[in-house]
């Protein structure tokens, strides 16, 4: 019942293997999520294609002001990368917030996005930073904005046999500030009850020129709270306006009841933590 493990060193080879084996194949990078699902019996591929030796998928680089993180870069590499920290300290924090150091040493940035677990940290932050993944298939290469990548729980818009090669975070407009907050009322190593990733830029008159608010762990995908953003854009971000925006974020959340709290509580926490994230950005 075991699978055959393949470890190509070229991307073309990996794509060819995935194309050849179709539904019987599964691609892995760090393989943390795969191992959990496989051990549980929920995945039974005949072929597993490991991407860790594909050199072109690794590394973190600056591309004309944009930050490009290779799919097989580990979370640990990303959290410790001076490039990531310089680009956006909150992004480095989001990577450093994932699970524990053991998981971050193994799990990769691309694998995490392909796994599409809405309770994870990087998806919300990367969505707030307007990132896009580069996806490649035998048919060619395309860019998928994160807003279009996440479709449902564990479900992405990647076509069968298509791989994420990198995530590209565009240059932040000068003056943009970013925040990532994670609410952990149970233990320090728990999944978030709610997380909020936000970016905000003010124009010279102090009004909000641009803002993005993304809620994590309270929906089938990370949720962009566009109504909250609309309430702030062009406005002076005083306490009342932020409170109003945060209340709209509460309505954008789509959580379920579980051991981390009732849906009603999580919605309320989406409000509180949105307010806190936004306040930190205008402080």
């Amino acid at each position: 019942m075991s699978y055959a493990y393949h470890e190509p060193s070229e991307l073309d080879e990996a794509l060819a293997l995935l194309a050849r084996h179709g539904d019987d194949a599964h691609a892995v990078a760090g393989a943390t999520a795969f191992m959990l699902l496989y051990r549980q019996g929920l995945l039974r591929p005949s072929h597993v294609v490991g991407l860790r030796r594909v050199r072109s998928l690794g590394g973190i680089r600056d591309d004309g002001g944009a930050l490009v993180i290779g799919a097989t870069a580990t979370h640990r590499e990303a959290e410790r990368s001076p490039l990531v920290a310089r680009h956006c300290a909150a992004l480095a924090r989001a990577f450093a917030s994932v699970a524990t150091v053991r998981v971050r040493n193994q799990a990769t940035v691309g694998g995490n996005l392909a796994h599409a677990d809405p309770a994870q940290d990087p998806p919300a932050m990367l969505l707030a930073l307007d990132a896009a993944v580069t996806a490649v298939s035998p048919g060619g290469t395309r860019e998928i904005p994160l807003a279009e990548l996440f479709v449902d729980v564990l479900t992405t818009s990647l076509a069968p046999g298509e791989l994420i090669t990198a995530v590209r975070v565009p240059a932040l407009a000068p003056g943009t500030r970013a925040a990532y907050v994670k609410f952990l009322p149970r233990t320090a190593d728990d999944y978030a009850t709610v997380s909020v990733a936000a970016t905000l830029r003010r124009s010279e008159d102090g009004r909000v020129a641009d803002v993005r608010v993304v809620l994590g762990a309270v929906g089938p995908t990370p949720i962009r709270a566009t109504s909250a953003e609309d309430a702030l854009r062009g406005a002076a971000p005083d306490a009342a306006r932020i409170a109003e925006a945060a209340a709209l974020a509460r309505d954008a959340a789509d959580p379920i009841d579980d051991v981390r709290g009732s849906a009603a509580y999580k919605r309320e926490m989406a409000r509180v933590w949105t307010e806190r994230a936004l306040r930190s950005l205008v402080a």
Partner: protein
Amino acid sequence: MKLAHSSTVPVPVERVWTVVMDVPRAAACVPGVSGVSGAGEDRFRGDLAVQVGPVRLSFSGEVAIVARDDAAHRATLRADAKEARLGGSVHASVEIALARAGEGCALRIESDLQVAGRIGELGQPLIQRKADQLLREFGACLARTAA
């Protein structure tokens, strides 16, 4: 876990009721259901394929109408299905109630779902989301089919 779905359909109650009580036809409204056939009075056999991202599960089992009140348009269905490869199973009690709503029909489905074995360990949030989604699609499809 308990799930509920309500919707209103611009179709007379009786017509919706006919669809609901035609189990093979109604079951075709659950995404992923196939091969439904009779297995005795008020009992039906069939398969259900569920996909959550890369996870594909295939259940086979039975649905039985355990109680029905044609006058009140209420019925209770019982579904038991196994995922043999994993040793998991799902068990659901589904209550369907129709009521006149103006010219149309108010449809209410309440389900008490149990997921047992390995599948149930996967994480209840995931299961709940998926089950909720199936129920919503089922309700919407019933309305379409009756119309």
